[in-house]
């Protein structure tokens, strides 16, 4: 077992009486790819929303790098080194592809409002650096050819890639991918698997929620299975595939 | 005194709620409906000397048609509605209606006689103007009609279904576009009623719409947007508060009271006094 980066202790979330996540105790190790799987409505996205500050937990603790992050706002969590993508792609469709990634450099640059007003961007070295960095991350996901077109006009597969490039541009320690392969065809899914491998090679811990079992079993070091908000199994992909509880949850009995 | 104005705010608030429930839109032209109703009534009774009940019906019908046309011509054709665009469209309609009212009825305020020409009535030691009784009676009638319509008629139930979940309602075969149209027409009609009954007291002019609309919206949020029972209570409450502040603070600032209440509610408890805290969190403000 490696060193933990993200830990959950007794995490619970209710929506008006409906329990979405219940008593979750779970640890994500540094430099791994961890997948969270489970039927629809099992509470996977809710966990992501709690980690990234979009929803407050009803009770329990979330610990990132030995720091309690329960009460942090979204942008603070991003600044600590956690970034996410969304199940329904959330790109800035009215901005160009490279501008999308440049927004991702927001945390790594610091020109404020007043200086922005006074000095034109072309005269600021920081702006040039932001553009170069953004281009680097576009190359990383293979989108540098479409840098100057509007993000909204990209096909869905590329939009997912762009979302990941934007998240990587924040230089996260932990990247949460919410169904990165949903809506992608087989070829794109394979490319996504390779990309996730490359991200891991950068030293970024990846947690993904995904339904595509081939992808999950192919790239994960660790798999957690949720059902009705409860953790019913965890282990290596091989262990999970043989676990009778998991088979029951998926196939029903 | 406060009850009279309060009843008007309640009616305006019900008008807001109707359109809000069926479309999620806040109609910035709601106050203009009130003005049009009042001005039309003045023309029909004072200039054309029609009888009160007949003029009342004609004025309401006229404004209902305006509401119907507004929905058909400006809301229905919008294919990619964004909140900002819809807000600006209803603002544009309100400017247009205000401009038309100014050109047709002029800039001065118009006088109208009370519905019945009897003197003040003694009532448990208090003197009440007959017009106040008319206002309270008509408010009660509108609210009863509203309750009957939404609870006991098929169309009313369809409209409620649309307001709860438009997509499911459509799947059940309800024509949701028709319901939107109806809600605009009815809401305009209710606005007109408010204008008609208050005109004998405040004298109507073309420019009153914005403030009446704002105060009515204040009542709507205080009662919880979309909750028409709450709107009635909140409207009366604001009216009484206004009348009291006119007595205690200064009549100059009277108009600001309803607005301050509105801002306070929006800032502190946007779900209104009757809203459940849980619902509030789920709604988007």
């Amino acid at each position: 077992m490696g060193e933990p980066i993200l830990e959950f202790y007794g995490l619970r979330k209710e929506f008006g009486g409906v329990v979405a996540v219940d008593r979750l105790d779970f640890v994500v190790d540094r430099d791994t790819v961890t997948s969270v799987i489970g039927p629809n409505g099992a509470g996977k996205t809710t966990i992501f929303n709690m980690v990234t500050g979009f929803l407050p937990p009803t009770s329990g603790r979330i610990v990132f790098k030995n720091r309690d992050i329960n009460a942090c706002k979204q942008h603070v969590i991003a600044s600590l080194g956690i970034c996410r993508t969304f199940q329904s792609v959330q790109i800035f469709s009215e901005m160009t592809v490279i501008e999308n990634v440049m927004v991702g450099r927001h945390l790594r640059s610091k020109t404020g409002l007043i200086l922005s007003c006074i000095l034109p961007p072309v005269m600021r070295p920081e702006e040039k650096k932001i553009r170069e960095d953004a281009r680097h991350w576009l190359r990383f996901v293979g989108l540098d050819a479409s840098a100057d077109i509007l993000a909204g006009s990209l096909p869905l597969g590329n939009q997912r890639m762009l979302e990941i490039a934007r998240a990587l541009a924040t230089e996260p320690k932990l990247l949460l991918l919410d169904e990165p392969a949903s809506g992608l065809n087989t070829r794109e899914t394979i490319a996504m698997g390779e990309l996730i491998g490359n991200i891991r090679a950068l030293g970024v811990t990846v947690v993904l929620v995904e339904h595509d079992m081939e992808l999950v079993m192919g790239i994960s070091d660790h798999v957690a299975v949720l059902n009705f908000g409860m953790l019913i199994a965890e282990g290596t992909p091989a262990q999970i595939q043989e676990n009778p509880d998991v088979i029951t949850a998926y196939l029903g009995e | 005194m406060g009850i009279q104005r309060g009843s008007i705010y309640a009616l305006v608030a019900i008008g807001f709620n109707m359109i809000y429930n069926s479309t999620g839109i806040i109609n910035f032209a709601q106050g203009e409906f009130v003005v049009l109703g009042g001005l039309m009534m003045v023309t029909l009774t004072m200039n054309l000397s029609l009888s009160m009940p007949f003029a009342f019906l004609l004025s309401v019908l006229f404004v209902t048609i305006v509401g119907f046309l507004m929905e058909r011509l400006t809301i229905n054709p919008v294919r990619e509605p964004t909140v900002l665009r819809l807000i600006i469209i209803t603002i544009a309609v309100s400017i247009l209606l205000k401009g038309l009212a100014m050109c047709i009825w002029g800039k001065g305020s118009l006088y109208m006689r009370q519905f019945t020409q009897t003197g003040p009535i003694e009532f448990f030691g208090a003197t009440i103007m007959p017009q106040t009784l008319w206002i309270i009676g008509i408010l009660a009638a509108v609210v009863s009609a509203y309750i009957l319509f939404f609870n006991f008629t098929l169309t009313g139930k369809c409209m409620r279904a649309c307001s709860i979940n438009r997509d499911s309602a459509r799947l059940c075969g309800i024509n949701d576009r028709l319901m939107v149209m109806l809600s605009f027409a009815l809401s305009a009609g209710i606005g007109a009623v408010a204008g008609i009954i208050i005109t004998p007291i405040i004298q109507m002019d073309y420019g009153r719409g914005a403030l009446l609309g704002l105060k009515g919206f204040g009542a709507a949020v205080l009662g919880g947007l979309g909750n028409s029972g709450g709107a009635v209570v909140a409207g009366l409450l604001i009216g009484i508060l206004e009348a009291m502040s006119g007595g205690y603070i200064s009549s100059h600032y009277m108009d600001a009271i309803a607005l301050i209440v509105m801002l306070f509610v929006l800032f502190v408890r946007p779900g209104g006094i009757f809203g459940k805290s849980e619902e509030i969190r789920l709604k988007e403000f």
Partner: protein
Amino acid sequence: MQGKDYIGFSVFVIFMLALPHWISNDYYLGVLVFTAFNCMACVGLCLLMGYAGQISLGHGAFVAIGAYAAGILTTHLGWSPWLAMGAGVLAAVFIALVIGVPSLRLKGHYLAMATLGFASIVHIVSVAAIDITNGPAGIIDIPRIKLFGFALDSDIRYYYFVWIIFAVGLFFAINLVKSRVGRGLRAIHGSEDAASAVGVNITRYKIQIFILSAVYAAVSGSLYAYYVNYIDPGPFDIMYSVLLVTMVAVGGLHSLWGAVAGGILLSLLPELLSMAADTFAGVGIAYKPDYDTIVYGGILLFIMLFMPEGLFGGISTLGSLVFKAIARMAGRRYPSG
């Protein structure tokens, strides 16, 4: 691509500064001075509405605050006009902060209503607080502003003065929208969730931009007070706030140039209409200035229904279509490869 706006900016500034060569009539210069006030407020509002995506139906109130600060402090307390303008800006910053923090937690219709309510309260106070604002009678004898001891007492001098200040304001705004902060704002407009997920502090940015737009409005108001030397509550009713939104929306929400175009067009509209009235009169239609409101409403409605990107957006879409068509034709004539 980067420099396009700066070229446009230079052309625009040179044009505006050269304009008095063709217009020597003081009346029309005055109209153009008023145009500059409106454009100033529009640019600020455009930053808020077009870039950060937050509506405000209350910016007329900030114009009023700038104007009243200028009027009250120079006449009652004898402050210098520049100092009074600075105080007006500070007052606007403070009030924008107090109103903005709770308001900007609201969205869409609620934000619109809250800001409209705020504008209405400011208007009511300006009428009712007779001790301070002199109520409906207004404040008279507001001094003219001096620049380096040089009195700006003629229309032509004031024309250059306000358009240069406007140019500086526009320059700042162009810089801003192209900068890191501007990208953050556009990101908020695109998706608040995604913007906050990559670390944009959306609450802070919304408030900052609300304050900045209030500053533009307050400066516009102060300049107005020093130009007409008299202020009363009349021009600052909620209709003025609505008019500012109309200008920005008609020109095109998503571009500063649209806001400028809308500001110029709607400021000149009464003049254009009264010129047109002569033409109408020739064919037997008696056009009256009273009809202006209808025309405003009609234009706004038309634009929102048929050109939601605004005049400027519509024209640039049209322009790029024409450009593409020409390129296609050219391509057909000279097939490449």
